[in-house]
């Protein structure tokens, strides 16, 4: 449900950048969204259309780069990809994982006019 707030956050950034970077419309927005960022990409895309109406990003496209959950296994000393925060190491089944990635919530790049 907070995807709407996230969309508003993105739009605020785009509006602030518009002055600095001298553009008046945004056509595409590239995002990095981590698996554990608490954001549901489909809800984000839906919210984006609503939030950007009558804004400089109206009809713009959100391109979401999904970042998988990454962890470092303290037991077998390897970097592994995990699906859930509570997963065991897929290599050695140890529960001693330290999250190293998957919480990203970033605007990476814009295509603007």
């Amino acid at each position, binding site marked *: 449900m*907070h995807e709407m707030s996230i969309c508003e*956050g993105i739009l605020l950034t785009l*509006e602030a*950048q518009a002055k600095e970077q001298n553009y008046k419309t945004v056509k595409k927005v590239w995002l990095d969204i981590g698996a554990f960022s608490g954001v549901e990409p489909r809800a984000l895309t839906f919210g984006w259309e609503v939030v950007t109406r009558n804004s400089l990003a109206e009809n713009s496209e959100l391109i979401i780069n999904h970042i998988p959950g990454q962890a470092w296994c303290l037991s077998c000393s390897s970097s592994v990809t995990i699906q859930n925060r*509570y997963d065991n190491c897929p290599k050695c089944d140890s529960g001693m994982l330290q999250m190293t990635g998957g919480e990203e919530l970033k605007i990476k790049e814009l295509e603007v006019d």
Partner: protein
Amino acid sequence: MCTVCGCGTGEVSIENNHNHQHDHNHDHQHNHEHSHETHAPHTENGDLHYGTGPAHSHAPGLSQSRMIEIETNILSKNDEYAHNNRHLFSHKGIFALNLVSSPGSGKTTLLTETITRLKDKLSVAVIEGDQQTANDADRIRATGVPAIQVNTGKGCHLDAHMVGHAVEHLGLDDYSLLFIENVGNLVCPSAFDLGEDHKVAILSVTEGEDKPIKYPDMFAAADVMLLNKTDLLPYLDFDVDACIAYAKKVNSNIQVIQVSAKTGEGMDEWINWLITQRKARLTQAKSALSTQLKALETAMDI
């Protein structure tokens, strides 16, 4: 105009704060003063050069799209407000806790019990977040401490901006204890830093023991989990050990305290945790101040 951000009107309402309703639906009509450098042809020696913009497109009449790398955190605006709140708290020696849980976990009862035990020792204040009604703030005020209700309207969480305003209206005492009772929701509030010292997740034994793995983001973000309503355990099939194991699975550092706000069981442990953490924070502030004092004395001594 508000001093936190100078913002306009919106849907969020803060009690007794008629003119300060914020949602950041500002009138973004931004008719920017564009110099049209990137759209107008570039003139050189009397010739017109289209397509000299950064993207080097050469189709006359078509606008030139260009790429901008910005690499910005989406929640950077919230984080900025959270940073300001944290700065204010640290400046005034305020210890702030963000209480998060699902609706009906017994947060408000736990809070009133906690306040009753602490209010004679130190100054306590509460920010109550709910979508509607001031019922919870009324319950807190009945204990004799100041409380302010923030109604988020359709919003599912408090953000640092709302908290900044609420703090402004509460007028907190130096060295006080601030509880921020978030909107009952185990999902959204996990993403929003409010400037607090710790997030405290409250889970009651009338909920499922697997909530920490069903809603892992919240338990991963919290420093402590209060397992509430333990007086009801004899009547339920709730597996306490499994619940704690699940919580540790998503957050190996999470501390678990079992409490019953009703019978008082475990309340001493919770109060001790709170006092110890607050003291640790104030000790940090004290050592920073003494470093500053030493630097000042050295500067005076020439």
